[in-house]
């Protein structure tokens, strides 16, 4: 029997009250399933950064979490402004966050670089005015 676990989560842009809950849930699932804890930590860093990007910049987004014994995939698709220059966005320290966001401790320009650093496979595509799609893969 194919053992793949799939769950989809909704993320609402600007909902700072519940920000981070999806990555907390993903982390709990991985821990219960018994994935190695250092891998859980890498996945939760990726999931958290991706979730926060939706909360901070997009109107709404979907996080598709799927895993099998060998690999965990997280696909985040949002409806939002999109990214004009992906290469620039991938640079450490580059951020379009407002000063309010930065005062709250977000938007240090480390989100996307952090995801890339922790993921085994990472793909980003974006259409300005429509949204951004991240595909993150981590070997278990």
């Amino acid at each position, binding site marked *: 029997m194919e053992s793949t*676990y799939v769950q989809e989560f909704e993320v609402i842009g600007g909902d700072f009250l519940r920000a*981070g809950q999806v990555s*907390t849930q993903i982390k709990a*699932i991985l*821990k219960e*399933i*018994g994935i190695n804890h250092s891998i859980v930590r890498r996945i939760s860093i990726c999931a958290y950064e991706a979730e926060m990007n939706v909360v901070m910049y997009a109107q709404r987004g979907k996080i598709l979490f799927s895993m099998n014994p060998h690999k965990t995939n997280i696909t985040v698709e949002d409806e939002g402004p999109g990214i004009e220059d992906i290469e620039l966005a991938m640079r450490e320290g580059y951020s379009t966050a407002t000063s309010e966001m930065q005062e709250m401790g977000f938007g240090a320009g480390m989100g996307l670089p952090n995801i890339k650093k922790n993921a085994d496979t990472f793909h980003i595509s974006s259409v300005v005015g429509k949204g951004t799609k991240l595909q993150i893969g981590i070997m278990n």
Partner: protein
Amino acid sequence: MSQIVHTVSIDRELCKGSMACVQSCPAEAIRVRKGKAVILDELCVDCGECIQICPNNAIKPQTSSFIDFSQYKYTIAVPSPVLYSQFDRKFSPNSILKALRQIGFDDAADVTYCCESVSLVIREFLTTYHGPVPLISPFCPAVVRLIQNRYPDLRELLLPIESPMEICARDQKLKKSRELNIPQEEIGAIYITPCPAKINSILCPPRKEESLLNGGISISEIYNSLLSVLSSFDKNINYSEDRCISGIGVGWAVMGGEAKSLQAENTLAVAGLHNVIRILDDIEKGRLRDLEYVECLACPEGCVGGSLTVGNPYISRSKIIRLTEQFSELAAQDWDTTKDLYDKGHFLLSQEIPSIPPKLLDKDIGAAIQKMKMRDEIVKTLPGTDCGACGAPTCASFARDVVNGDADINMCVFKVYEKIKKISSQLTELLNGSAFMSTRNHSGKS
């Protein structure tokens, strides 16, 4: 030591199966099964939150009694600084130490000096530390157990420094063995504890082979004897004049005292296990990297909120703060001596902390994924009210218990109600359809 020992247990005679403990346990480690509460060993962190919540006084800490110490030639009480906040303000720390010497201990040693030494040592440690941050304070044993259990990847962040209570026991044993010319093994050091977690750290210390303390007695257990001795002291003697404690050190009894004593810019203090869990979750997600040090304490307001204390935690807190102010003038500890000891390794711990993983859904990841899916399916059919009538704290934890084979789906009253409704409608249908009943009805009506 990695063996699981617990210092909280349930008296099955007294337990009436109340859900109070199940629903208040921050670790979701209690279930009511067959009408009695049961502690799940692999999840319990010995915080003791359940002890005060139980309406039937059925949850007891496992503390030592005086009789256990008869094997020692000489006994030293090592009271948590919380003890100083448990009595009226007119009773100074010195008079409380004196009272301890009258209720059966040969001596009583103050721990606040050691707290201050450890504060100085942490300051020094932080100036030369370049590893991952934030470092997490390792002095609340319930928090350490939680990390071993649920956040094994954060073990590397636990500060590798010995706790003040252990240092106090070590120093006192050395001093007394020289003074009295007896071997250290014949001296018993007994911790006067505000919580069961500290006793647990004496019975099975996570960070070393063996504790230097030989047991623990709760503050609540000796409170009355101490109070009667204190009340008998001559009121004309002003014990408050004595300079016997460290202001910085006594602050460790409340949330923020330890963090403040480090004089570092980026520290954080958190108290209450629910709040600690939120902070650890954030750290695990890679947040809070701008912090140097996080003080995490399981009890609300810090150790003054321990479940084996007597005083109201908020009143105790204000007393502790007054003591920190009263004894703030002089730095009690001489840094040169402390630094010398630190350089010699007197305060450092090098042993790796073992992880204590909770029971997995399955050893095989593929099978665990299947069970997770089953769990999700079961959750969908449950009412989601988290009523607790099944004996589990939430519908989700109940579903997990069912998948693990630790609970039966029919323990959910809503499921049973649904089934009874279905069966009774089937019965009505059967009765209405039976030829016998319809004739009777017919004849009855006509």
